[in-house]
Protein backbone atom coordinates (compact mmCIF):
# COMPACT_ATOMS: atom_id res chain seq x y z
CA UNK A 1 0.00 0.00 0.00
CA UNK A 2 2.76 2.35 0.98
CA UNK A 3 4.65 1.36 -2.16
CA UNK A 4 1.62 2.18 -4.31
CA UNK A 5 1.40 5.59 -2.63
CA UNK A 6 5.04 6.29 -3.26
CA UNK A 7 4.72 5.16 -6.87
CA UNK A 8 1.72 7.46 -7.37
CA UNK A 9 3.53 10.36 -5.72
CA UNK A 10 6.35 9.92 -8.21
CA UNK A 11 4.31 9.24 -11.33
CA UNK A 12 1.15 11.29 -10.81
CA UNK A 13 1.87 13.51 -13.78
CA UNK A 14 2.36 10.50 -16.10
CA UNK A 15 -1.00 9.06 -15.04
CA UNK A 16 -2.73 12.41 -14.72
CA UNK A 17 -1.97 14.03 -18.07
CA UNK A 18 -3.89 11.57 -20.32
CA UNK A 19 -6.82 11.59 -17.87
CA UNK A 20 -6.99 15.37 -17.96
CA UNK A 21 -6.77 15.31 -21.75
CA UNK A 22 -9.66 12.82 -21.99
CA UNK A 23 -11.80 14.93 -19.65
CA UNK A 24 -11.18 18.06 -21.72
CA UNK A 25 -12.11 16.14 -24.86
CA UNK A 26 -15.25 14.73 -23.25
CA UNK A 27 -16.32 18.18 -22.17
CA UNK A 28 -15.48 19.78 -25.55
CA UNK A 29 -17.54 17.24 -27.56
CA UNK A 30 -20.45 17.28 -25.11
CA UNK A 31 -20.61 21.08 -25.14
CA UNK A 32 -20.45 21.26 -28.94
CA UNK A 33 -17.03 22.93 -29.06
CA UNK A 34 -15.81 19.94 -31.08
CA UNK A 35 -18.13 18.42 -33.73
CA UNK A 36 -19.32 15.16 -32.23
CA UNK A 37 -19.61 13.62 -35.72
CA UNK A 38 -15.83 13.76 -36.12
CA UNK A 39 -14.76 13.92 -32.47
CA UNK A 40 -17.19 11.74 -30.57
CA UNK A 41 -17.06 11.78 -26.78
CA UNK A 42 -14.49 9.38 -25.28
CA UNK A 43 -17.28 7.76 -23.25
CA UNK A 44 -19.15 6.87 -26.48
CA UNK A 45 -15.92 5.52 -27.96
CA UNK A 46 -15.51 3.28 -24.93
CA UNK A 47 -19.07 1.95 -25.47
CA UNK A 48 -18.24 1.12 -29.07
CA UNK A 49 -14.98 -0.46 -28.04
CA UNK A 50 -16.91 -2.71 -25.65
CA UNK A 51 -19.36 -3.67 -28.42
CA UNK A 52 -16.50 -4.52 -30.78
CA UNK A 53 -14.90 -6.63 -28.07
CA UNK A 54 -18.13 -8.42 -27.13
CA UNK A 55 -19.12 -9.39 -30.69
CA UNK A 56 -15.58 -10.66 -31.31
CA UNK A 57 -14.77 -8.38 -34.27
CA UNK A 58 -11.93 -6.73 -32.41
CA UNK A 59 -10.18 -9.91 -31.30
CA UNK A 60 -10.12 -11.39 -34.79
CA UNK A 61 -8.56 -8.30 -36.30
CA UNK A 62 -6.19 -7.77 -33.39
CA UNK A 63 -4.99 -11.37 -33.59
CA UNK A 64 -4.37 -11.02 -37.33
CA UNK A 65 -2.34 -7.85 -36.78
CA UNK A 66 -0.38 -9.35 -33.88
CA UNK A 67 0.59 -12.41 -35.91
CA UNK A 68 1.75 -10.18 -38.76
CA UNK A 69 3.78 -8.02 -36.37
CA UNK A 70 5.23 -11.18 -34.86
CA UNK A 71 6.44 -12.49 -38.23
CA UNK A 72 7.72 -9.11 -39.48
CA UNK A 73 9.54 -8.36 -36.28
CA UNK A 74 11.08 -11.83 -36.02
CA UNK A 75 12.29 -11.64 -39.61
CA UNK A 76 13.73 -8.16 -39.05
CA UNK A 77 15.28 -9.09 -35.69
CA UNK A 78 17.00 -12.26 -36.86
CA UNK A 79 18.41 -10.75 -40.06
CA UNK A 80 19.07 -7.34 -38.47
CA UNK A 81 21.04 -8.67 -35.52
CA UNK A 82 22.98 -11.18 -37.65
CA UNK A 83 23.92 -8.69 -40.36
CA UNK A 84 24.44 -5.87 -37.84
CA UNK A 85 26.88 -8.02 -35.86
CA UNK A 86 28.72 -9.01 -39.02
CA UNK A 87 28.97 -5.35 -40.05
CA UNK A 88 30.22 -4.43 -36.60
CA UNK A 89 32.93 -7.06 -36.77
CA UNK A 90 34.13 -6.71 -40.35
CA UNK A 91 35.10 -3.31 -41.67
CA UNK A 92 34.99 -4.38 -45.32
CA UNK A 93 31.42 -5.58 -45.05
CA UNK A 94 30.45 -2.38 -43.25
CA UNK A 95 32.05 -0.19 -45.90
CA UNK A 96 30.33 -2.20 -48.63
CA UNK A 97 26.85 -2.18 -47.15
CA UNK A 98 26.75 1.30 -45.59
CA UNK A 99 26.02 3.23 -48.82
CA UNK A 100 23.39 0.69 -49.90
CA UNK A 101 21.67 0.92 -46.54
CA UNK A 102 21.89 4.71 -46.51
CA UNK A 103 19.98 4.86 -49.79
CA UNK A 104 17.29 2.29 -48.97
CA UNK A 105 16.70 3.10 -45.31
CA UNK A 106 14.90 6.49 -45.64
CA UNK A 107 12.37 5.20 -48.20
CA UNK A 108 8.96 4.85 -46.50
CA UNK A 109 8.45 1.12 -46.12
CA UNK A 110 4.92 1.03 -47.52
CA UNK A 111 6.38 1.97 -50.91
CA UNK A 112 8.14 -1.39 -50.98
CA UNK A 113 4.84 -3.24 -51.14
CA UNK A 114 4.54 -3.30 -54.94
CA UNK A 115 8.22 -4.16 -55.35
CA UNK A 116 8.03 -6.88 -52.73
CA UNK A 117 4.89 -8.25 -54.39
CA UNK A 118 6.96 -8.95 -57.55
CA UNK A 119 9.54 -10.83 -55.55
CA UNK A 120 7.47 -12.89 -53.11
CA UNK A 121 3.88 -14.17 -53.27
CA UNK A 122 1.56 -11.19 -52.85
CA UNK A 123 -0.75 -11.13 -49.89
CA UNK A 124 0.33 -12.24 -46.45
CA UNK A 125 3.99 -12.87 -47.20
CA UNK A 126 4.43 -9.61 -49.12
CA UNK A 127 2.86 -7.72 -46.23
CA UNK A 128 5.13 -9.33 -43.66
CA UNK A 129 8.27 -8.73 -45.74
CA UNK A 130 7.34 -5.10 -46.42
CA UNK A 131 6.72 -4.43 -42.75
CA UNK A 132 10.10 -5.86 -41.82
CA UNK A 133 12.20 -3.61 -44.10
CA UNK A 134 12.56 -0.46 -41.98
CA UNK A 135 12.61 -2.52 -38.81
CA UNK A 136 15.50 -4.53 -40.23
CA UNK A 137 17.54 -1.43 -41.02
CA UNK A 138 17.01 0.06 -37.57
CA UNK A 139 18.06 -3.15 -35.86
CA UNK A 140 21.06 -3.62 -38.15
CA UNK A 141 22.21 -0.01 -37.61
CA UNK A 142 21.96 -0.09 -33.83
CA UNK A 143 23.58 -3.53 -33.65
CA UNK A 144 26.52 -2.39 -35.77
CA UNK A 145 26.93 0.66 -33.59
CA UNK A 146 26.60 -1.52 -30.50
CA UNK A 147 29.60 -3.58 -31.55
CA UNK A 148 31.60 -0.53 -32.58
CA UNK A 149 31.07 1.44 -29.37
CA UNK A 150 32.49 -1.23 -27.05
CA UNK A 151 35.38 0.22 -25.05
CA UNK A 152 38.59 -0.80 -26.87
CA UNK A 153 40.38 -1.05 -23.56
CA UNK A 154 37.85 -3.61 -22.33
CA UNK A 155 38.37 -5.67 -25.50
CA UNK A 156 42.12 -5.39 -25.08
CA UNK A 157 41.89 -6.49 -21.45
CA UNK A 158 39.69 -9.42 -22.45
CA UNK A 159 42.25 -10.47 -25.08
CA UNK A 160 45.03 -10.10 -22.55
CA UNK A 161 43.15 -12.50 -20.28
CA UNK A 162 42.98 -15.07 -23.04
CA UNK A 163 39.66 -14.46 -24.80
CA UNK A 164 40.08 -15.07 -28.53
CA UNK A 165 37.87 -16.08 -31.46
CA UNK A 166 34.51 -17.44 -30.45
CA UNK A 167 35.13 -16.73 -26.74
CA UNK A 168 35.87 -13.09 -27.51
CA UNK A 169 32.65 -12.84 -29.49
CA UNK A 170 30.38 -14.66 -27.04
CA UNK A 171 31.79 -13.25 -23.80
CA UNK A 172 32.77 -9.75 -24.85
CA UNK A 173 31.53 -8.43 -28.20
CA UNK A 174 27.97 -9.78 -28.08
CA UNK A 175 27.20 -8.77 -24.47
CA UNK A 176 28.89 -5.43 -25.08
CA UNK A 177 26.55 -4.76 -28.01
CA UNK A 178 23.40 -6.04 -26.28
CA UNK A 179 22.16 -2.74 -24.78
CA UNK A 180 22.21 -1.23 -28.27
CA UNK A 181 20.67 -4.32 -29.82
CA UNK A 182 17.78 -3.97 -27.38
CA UNK A 183 17.32 -0.33 -28.28
CA UNK A 184 17.22 -1.36 -31.93
CA UNK A 185 14.71 -4.12 -31.21
CA UNK A 186 12.45 -1.70 -29.38
CA UNK A 187 12.55 0.81 -32.23
CA UNK A 188 12.17 -1.99 -34.76
CA UNK A 189 9.13 -3.42 -33.01
CA UNK A 190 7.48 0.00 -33.08
CA UNK A 191 8.16 0.32 -36.80
CA UNK A 192 6.89 -3.19 -37.51
CA UNK A 193 3.59 -2.17 -35.90
CA UNK A 194 3.43 1.10 -37.82
CA UNK A 195 4.08 -0.51 -41.19
CA UNK A 196 1.85 -3.55 -40.61
CA UNK A 197 -1.06 -1.21 -39.82
CA UNK A 198 -0.21 1.07 -42.76
CA UNK A 199 -0.08 -1.83 -45.21
CA UNK A 200 -3.33 -3.17 -43.78
CA UNK A 201 -4.90 0.22 -44.52
CA UNK A 202 -3.80 0.17 -48.16
CA UNK A 203 -4.14 -3.47 -49.05
CA UNK A 204 -5.70 -5.82 -46.51
CA UNK A 205 -9.22 -6.80 -45.62
CA UNK A 206 -8.36 -8.05 -42.16
CA UNK A 207 -6.31 -6.61 -39.29
CA UNK A 208 -6.62 -3.51 -37.13
CA UNK A 209 -5.48 -1.22 -39.95
CA UNK A 210 -8.18 -2.64 -42.24
CA UNK A 211 -10.79 -2.30 -39.48
CA UNK A 212 -9.80 1.31 -38.88
CA UNK A 213 -9.97 2.18 -42.56
CA UNK A 214 -13.26 0.36 -43.08
CA UNK A 215 -14.81 2.14 -40.10
CA UNK A 216 -13.73 5.45 -41.51
CA UNK A 217 -15.07 4.73 -44.99
CA UNK A 218 -18.54 3.86 -43.69
CA UNK A 219 -18.28 6.78 -41.25
CA UNK A 220 -18.43 4.64 -38.15
CA UNK A 221 -16.24 7.24 -36.49
CA UNK A 222 -16.58 5.79 -32.99
CA UNK A 223 -15.33 2.41 -34.23
CA UNK A 224 -12.45 4.14 -35.96
CA UNK A 225 -11.42 5.81 -32.72
CA UNK A 226 -11.88 2.58 -30.80
CA UNK A 227 -9.53 0.80 -33.21
CA UNK A 228 -7.18 3.73 -33.03
CA UNK A 229 -7.05 3.33 -29.27
CA UNK A 230 -6.41 -0.41 -29.50
CA UNK A 231 -3.50 0.13 -31.91
CA UNK A 232 -1.98 2.74 -29.60
CA UNK A 233 -2.37 0.47 -26.59
CA UNK A 234 -0.80 -2.44 -28.49
CA UNK A 235 2.18 -0.29 -29.39
CA UNK A 236 2.66 0.85 -25.81
CA UNK A 237 2.36 -2.69 -24.42
CA UNK A 238 4.87 -4.13 -26.88
CA UNK A 239 7.33 -1.33 -26.20
CA UNK A 240 7.09 -1.57 -22.42
CA UNK A 241 7.20 -5.35 -22.60
CA UNK A 242 10.49 -5.23 -24.43
CA UNK A 243 11.84 -2.61 -22.01
CA UNK A 244 10.91 -4.84 -19.07
CA UNK A 245 12.56 -7.81 -20.78
CA UNK A 246 15.71 -5.73 -21.26
CA UNK A 247 15.80 -4.75 -17.58
CA UNK A 248 15.51 -8.42 -16.64
CA UNK A 249 18.06 -9.70 -19.13
CA UNK A 250 20.62 -6.91 -18.73
CA UNK A 251 20.89 -6.25 -14.98
CA UNK A 252 24.36 -4.81 -15.52
CA UNK A 253 23.18 -1.80 -17.52
CA UNK A 254 23.04 0.93 -14.87
CA UNK A 255 19.71 2.63 -15.65
CA UNK A 256 17.96 -0.61 -16.60
CA UNK A 257 19.02 -2.46 -13.46
CA UNK A 258 18.23 0.20 -10.90
CA UNK A 259 14.78 1.02 -12.18
Amino acid at each position, binding site marked *: MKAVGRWLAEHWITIGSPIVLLYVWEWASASGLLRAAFFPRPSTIVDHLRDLAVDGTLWGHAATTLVRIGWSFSLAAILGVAIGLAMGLWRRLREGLDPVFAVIYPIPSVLFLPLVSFLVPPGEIALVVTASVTSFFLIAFTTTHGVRQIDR*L*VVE*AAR*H*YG*ATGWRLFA*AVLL*PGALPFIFTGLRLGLGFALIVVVAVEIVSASRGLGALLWLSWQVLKVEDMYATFFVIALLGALLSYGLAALRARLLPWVPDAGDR
Partner: protein
Amino acid sequence: MPTREPKVLVNEVSVTFESRGRSVVALDRISLQAHAGEFLCIVGPSGSGKSTLLRVLAGLHRQSSGDVRIQADRPGTPLTAMVFQEHALLPWRTVRDNVTFGPENRGVGRVEREARAREMLAMVGLARFAQHYPHQLSGGMKQRVGIARALANDPEVLLMDEPLAALDAQTRTIMQEELLRIWATLGKTVVYVTHSLEEALLLGDRVVLLTARPGRVSQIYPVDLGRPRGLEVRASPAYGALLETIWSRLREEVVRAIEADRGADPEAIGG
Protein backbone atom coordinates in the same frame (compact mmCIF):
# COMPACT_ATOMS: atom_id res chain seq x y z
CA MET B 1 65.04 -9.16 0.34
CA PRO B 2 64.36 -10.45 -3.18
CA THR B 3 66.60 -13.18 -4.52
CA ARG B 4 69.00 -12.32 -7.31
CA GLU B 5 67.49 -14.67 -9.88
CA PRO B 6 66.30 -12.61 -12.90
CA LYS B 7 62.60 -13.07 -13.57
CA VAL B 8 62.12 -10.45 -16.23
CA LEU B 9 64.87 -9.73 -18.71
CA VAL B 10 64.48 -6.75 -21.03
CA ASN B 11 67.33 -6.50 -23.48
CA GLU B 12 67.84 -3.51 -25.84
CA VAL B 13 64.13 -3.13 -26.48
CA SER B 14 63.10 -0.35 -28.86
CA VAL B 15 59.61 0.60 -29.96
CA THR B 16 58.92 2.87 -32.92
CA PHE B 17 55.44 4.14 -33.74
CA GLU B 18 54.47 5.18 -37.25
CA SER B 19 52.17 8.17 -37.18
CA ARG B 20 51.23 10.31 -40.19
CA GLY B 21 54.19 9.12 -42.21
CA ARG B 22 56.67 10.01 -39.46
CA SER B 23 58.17 7.52 -37.12
CA VAL B 24 58.36 8.35 -33.45
CA VAL B 25 60.77 6.48 -31.23
CA ALA B 26 58.89 5.72 -28.00
CA LEU B 27 61.45 3.44 -26.40
CA ASP B 28 65.12 3.49 -27.23
CA ARG B 29 67.21 0.42 -26.38
CA ILE B 30 65.77 -0.21 -22.93
CA SER B 31 67.59 -2.80 -20.87
CA LEU B 32 66.56 -3.78 -17.38
CA GLN B 33 65.72 -6.78 -15.30
CA ALA B 34 63.45 -7.60 -12.41
CA HIS B 35 64.40 -10.29 -9.93
CA ALA B 36 62.01 -12.95 -8.69
CA GLY B 37 59.78 -11.45 -6.03
CA GLU B 38 60.97 -7.93 -6.69
CA PHE B 39 58.72 -4.87 -6.72
CA LEU B 40 60.13 -2.84 -9.60
CA CYS B 41 58.79 0.66 -10.17
CA ILE B 42 59.13 2.55 -13.42
CA VAL B 43 58.82 6.34 -13.35
CA GLY B 44 59.37 8.99 -15.97
CA PRO B 45 57.79 12.09 -17.47
CA SER B 46 54.66 11.83 -19.62
CA GLY B 47 55.54 10.41 -23.00
CA SER B 48 58.58 8.55 -21.74
CA GLY B 49 57.00 5.30 -22.87
CA LYS B 50 56.49 3.74 -19.42
CA SER B 51 53.11 2.36 -20.41
CA THR B 52 54.45 1.21 -23.76
CA LEU B 53 57.17 -0.75 -21.97
CA LEU B 54 54.53 -2.41 -19.82
CA ARG B 55 52.42 -3.22 -22.88
CA VAL B 56 55.44 -4.85 -24.48
CA LEU B 57 55.93 -6.96 -21.34
CA ALA B 58 52.23 -7.90 -21.43
CA GLY B 59 52.44 -8.96 -25.06
CA LEU B 60 49.90 -6.30 -26.04
CA HIS B 61 52.44 -4.51 -28.20
CA ARG B 62 55.30 -5.92 -30.21
CA GLN B 63 58.70 -4.30 -29.81
CA SER B 64 60.46 -3.09 -32.97
CA SER B 65 63.73 -4.64 -31.85
CA GLY B 66 65.38 -6.25 -28.83
CA ASP B 67 63.96 -9.05 -26.74
CA VAL B 68 61.98 -9.66 -23.62
CA ARG B 69 62.33 -12.83 -21.63
CA ILE B 70 60.20 -13.83 -18.71
CA GLN B 71 61.35 -16.82 -16.71
CA ALA B 72 58.49 -19.35 -16.52
CA ASP B 73 58.73 -21.44 -13.36
CA ARG B 74 55.29 -22.98 -13.32
CA PRO B 75 53.92 -24.37 -16.59
CA GLY B 76 50.21 -23.73 -17.21
CA THR B 77 50.02 -20.26 -15.74
CA PRO B 78 50.30 -17.15 -17.88
CA LEU B 79 53.53 -15.19 -17.92
CA THR B 80 51.93 -11.86 -17.14
CA ALA B 81 48.68 -10.40 -15.89
CA MET B 82 48.01 -6.71 -16.18
CA VAL B 83 46.14 -4.31 -13.93
CA PHE B 84 44.91 -1.53 -16.21
CA GLN B 85 44.76 2.13 -15.25
CA GLU B 86 41.06 2.43 -16.13
CA HIS B 87 40.35 -0.97 -14.53
CA ALA B 88 38.88 -2.29 -17.86
CA LEU B 89 36.49 -4.70 -16.18
CA LEU B 90 33.77 -6.37 -18.24
CA PRO B 91 30.64 -4.40 -17.22
CA TRP B 92 28.31 -7.33 -18.01
CA ARG B 93 30.03 -9.73 -15.67
CA THR B 94 29.66 -9.79 -11.92
CA VAL B 95 32.71 -9.13 -9.78
CA ARG B 96 33.23 -12.87 -9.34
CA ASP B 97 32.85 -13.61 -13.05
CA ASN B 98 35.33 -10.87 -13.87
CA VAL B 99 37.84 -12.50 -11.55
CA THR B 100 37.26 -15.98 -13.00
CA PHE B 101 37.50 -14.67 -16.58
CA GLY B 102 41.17 -15.50 -17.21
CA PRO B 103 41.07 -19.02 -15.74
CA GLU B 104 37.79 -19.64 -17.58
CA ASN B 105 39.44 -18.75 -20.90
CA ARG B 106 42.24 -21.17 -20.12
CA GLY B 107 39.78 -23.97 -19.43
CA VAL B 108 40.18 -24.16 -15.65
CA GLY B 109 37.22 -26.03 -14.11
CA ARG B 110 34.37 -24.11 -12.51
CA VAL B 111 34.94 -25.33 -8.95
CA GLU B 112 38.63 -24.56 -9.06
CA ARG B 113 38.34 -21.13 -10.64
CA GLU B 114 35.55 -20.04 -8.32
CA ALA B 115 37.49 -21.15 -5.27
CA ARG B 116 40.42 -19.14 -6.56
CA ALA B 117 38.17 -16.12 -7.15
CA ARG B 118 36.82 -16.34 -3.60
CA GLU B 119 40.33 -16.45 -2.23
CA MET B 120 41.47 -13.45 -4.28
CA LEU B 121 38.35 -11.41 -3.52
CA ALA B 122 38.85 -12.06 0.17
CA MET B 123 42.43 -10.89 -0.19
CA VAL B 124 41.38 -7.56 -1.71
CA GLY B 125 38.54 -7.23 0.82
CA LEU B 126 35.64 -7.67 -1.58
CA ALA B 127 34.32 -11.08 -0.55
CA ARG B 128 30.86 -9.64 0.07
CA PHE B 129 30.66 -8.03 -3.36
CA ALA B 130 31.12 -11.13 -5.51
CA GLN B 131 27.63 -10.84 -7.03
CA HIS B 132 27.77 -7.09 -7.68
CA TYR B 133 28.26 -5.58 -11.10
CA PRO B 134 31.14 -3.15 -11.70
CA HIS B 135 28.83 -0.13 -12.08
CA GLN B 136 27.68 -0.69 -8.49
CA LEU B 137 31.21 -0.25 -7.14
CA SER B 138 33.33 2.81 -6.36
CA GLY B 139 36.51 3.54 -8.29
CA GLY B 140 38.72 2.08 -5.58
CA MET B 141 36.64 -1.09 -5.40
CA LYS B 142 36.75 -1.53 -9.17
CA GLN B 143 40.51 -1.34 -9.05
CA ARG B 144 40.54 -3.96 -6.27
CA VAL B 145 38.58 -6.20 -8.63
CA GLY B 146 41.15 -5.45 -11.33
CA ILE B 147 43.90 -6.58 -8.96
CA ALA B 148 41.97 -9.71 -7.93
CA ARG B 149 41.35 -10.52 -11.60
CA ALA B 150 45.06 -10.31 -12.36
CA LEU B 151 46.05 -12.35 -9.30
CA ALA B 152 43.48 -15.06 -10.05
CA ASN B 153 45.62 -16.01 -13.05
CA ASP B 154 48.57 -16.63 -10.76
CA PRO B 155 50.91 -14.99 -13.28
CA GLU B 156 54.68 -15.21 -13.18
CA VAL B 157 54.80 -11.41 -13.21
CA LEU B 158 52.16 -8.90 -12.17
CA LEU B 159 52.11 -5.79 -14.36
CA MET B 160 50.48 -2.63 -13.07
CA ASP B 161 49.92 0.42 -15.26
CA GLU B 162 49.31 3.42 -12.98
CA PRO B 163 46.58 1.44 -11.24
CA LEU B 164 45.89 4.11 -8.63
CA ALA B 165 46.22 7.21 -10.82
CA ALA B 166 42.47 7.63 -11.32
CA LEU B 167 41.64 7.42 -7.60
CA ASP B 168 41.25 10.24 -5.11
CA ALA B 169 44.19 10.90 -2.78
CA GLN B 170 42.75 9.20 0.31
CA THR B 171 41.62 6.08 -1.52
CA ARG B 172 45.02 5.95 -3.20
CA THR B 173 46.83 5.99 0.14
CA ILE B 174 44.68 3.13 1.46
CA MET B 175 45.25 1.17 -1.73
CA GLN B 176 49.02 1.65 -1.49
CA GLU B 177 49.00 0.02 1.93
CA GLU B 178 46.80 -2.77 0.61
CA LEU B 179 49.18 -3.38 -2.28
CA LEU B 180 52.12 -3.66 0.11
CA ARG B 181 50.20 -6.18 2.19
CA ILE B 182 49.13 -8.27 -0.83
CA TRP B 183 52.60 -8.23 -2.29
CA ALA B 184 54.10 -9.29 1.04
CA THR B 185 51.59 -12.16 1.24
CA LEU B 186 52.00 -13.49 -2.31
CA GLY B 187 55.62 -12.60 -3.02
CA LYS B 188 54.88 -11.88 -6.69
CA THR B 189 57.27 -10.19 -9.04
CA VAL B 190 55.70 -6.82 -9.81
CA VAL B 191 56.51 -4.30 -12.52
CA TYR B 192 54.71 -1.13 -11.55
CA VAL B 193 54.41 1.99 -13.69
CA THR B 194 53.60 5.23 -11.92
CA HIS B 195 54.07 8.94 -12.44
CA SER B 196 54.32 9.44 -8.68
CA LEU B 197 57.82 9.28 -7.27
CA GLU B 198 56.42 9.15 -3.72
CA GLU B 199 54.40 6.07 -4.64
CA ALA B 200 57.45 4.44 -6.23
CA LEU B 201 59.53 5.01 -3.07
CA LEU B 202 56.78 3.68 -0.84
CA LEU B 203 56.23 0.52 -2.86
CA GLY B 204 59.37 -0.32 -4.79
CA ASP B 205 62.55 -2.26 -4.23
CA ARG B 206 64.13 -0.35 -7.08
CA VAL B 207 63.05 2.63 -9.14
CA VAL B 208 63.82 2.77 -12.86
CA LEU B 209 63.89 6.34 -14.11
CA LEU B 210 63.11 6.78 -17.81
CA THR B 211 64.08 9.84 -19.82
CA ALA B 212 61.71 12.05 -21.81
CA ARG B 213 60.93 10.80 -25.31
CA PRO B 214 62.58 8.81 -26.66
CA GLY B 215 62.43 6.76 -23.46
CA ARG B 216 65.78 5.49 -22.32
CA VAL B 217 66.84 4.18 -18.94
CA SER B 218 68.27 7.23 -17.20
CA GLN B 219 69.19 5.55 -13.98
CA ILE B 220 68.13 2.74 -11.66
CA TYR B 221 67.91 3.57 -7.95
CA PRO B 222 67.80 0.95 -5.21
CA VAL B 223 65.28 1.88 -2.52
CA ASP B 224 66.96 0.88 0.73
CA LEU B 225 64.21 1.91 3.08
CA GLY B 226 63.67 -1.46 4.74
CA ARG B 227 60.74 -3.87 4.75
CA PRO B 228 58.01 -4.17 5.77
CA ARG B 229 57.38 -0.63 4.73
CA GLY B 230 54.42 1.56 5.62
CA LEU B 231 53.35 5.14 5.19
CA GLU B 232 55.55 6.17 8.15
CA VAL B 233 58.58 5.71 5.88
CA ARG B 234 57.73 9.13 4.45
CA ALA B 235 58.92 10.72 7.69
CA SER B 236 62.40 9.17 7.54
CA PRO B 237 65.43 11.25 6.46
CA ALA B 238 66.59 8.50 4.07
CA TYR B 239 63.25 8.74 2.24
CA GLY B 240 63.57 12.52 1.94
CA ALA B 241 67.14 12.31 0.68
CA LEU B 242 66.32 9.66 -1.94
CA LEU B 243 63.23 11.55 -3.06
CA GLU B 244 65.36 14.67 -3.50
CA THR B 245 68.05 12.81 -5.46
CA ILE B 246 65.66 11.15 -7.89
CA TRP B 247 63.42 14.20 -8.21
CA SER B 248 66.29 16.45 -9.30
CA ARG B 249 66.98 13.99 -12.17
CA LEU B 250 63.29 13.50 -12.94
CA ARG B 251 62.73 17.24 -12.91
CA GLU B 252 65.27 17.71 -15.71
CA GLU B 253 63.45 15.11 -17.77
CA VAL B 254 60.04 16.65 -17.12
CA VAL B 255 61.33 20.07 -18.17
CA ARG B 256 62.86 18.51 -21.26
CA ALA B 257 59.55 16.83 -22.08
CA ILE B 258 57.65 20.10 -21.71
CA GLU B 259 60.15 21.97 -23.88
CA ALA B 260 60.01 19.23 -26.52
CA ASP B 261 56.23 19.59 -26.61
CA ARG B 262 56.49 23.36 -27.00
CA GLY B 263 59.17 23.03 -29.64
CA ALA B 264 57.07 20.61 -31.64
CA ASP B 265 54.26 23.12 -32.19
CA PRO B 266 55.81 25.72 -34.57
CA GLU B 267 57.48 22.91 -36.44
CA ALA B 268 54.15 21.20 -36.95
CA ILE B 269 52.49 24.41 -38.18
CA GLY B 270 55.33 25.81 -40.28
CA GLY B 271 56.33 22.42 -41.70
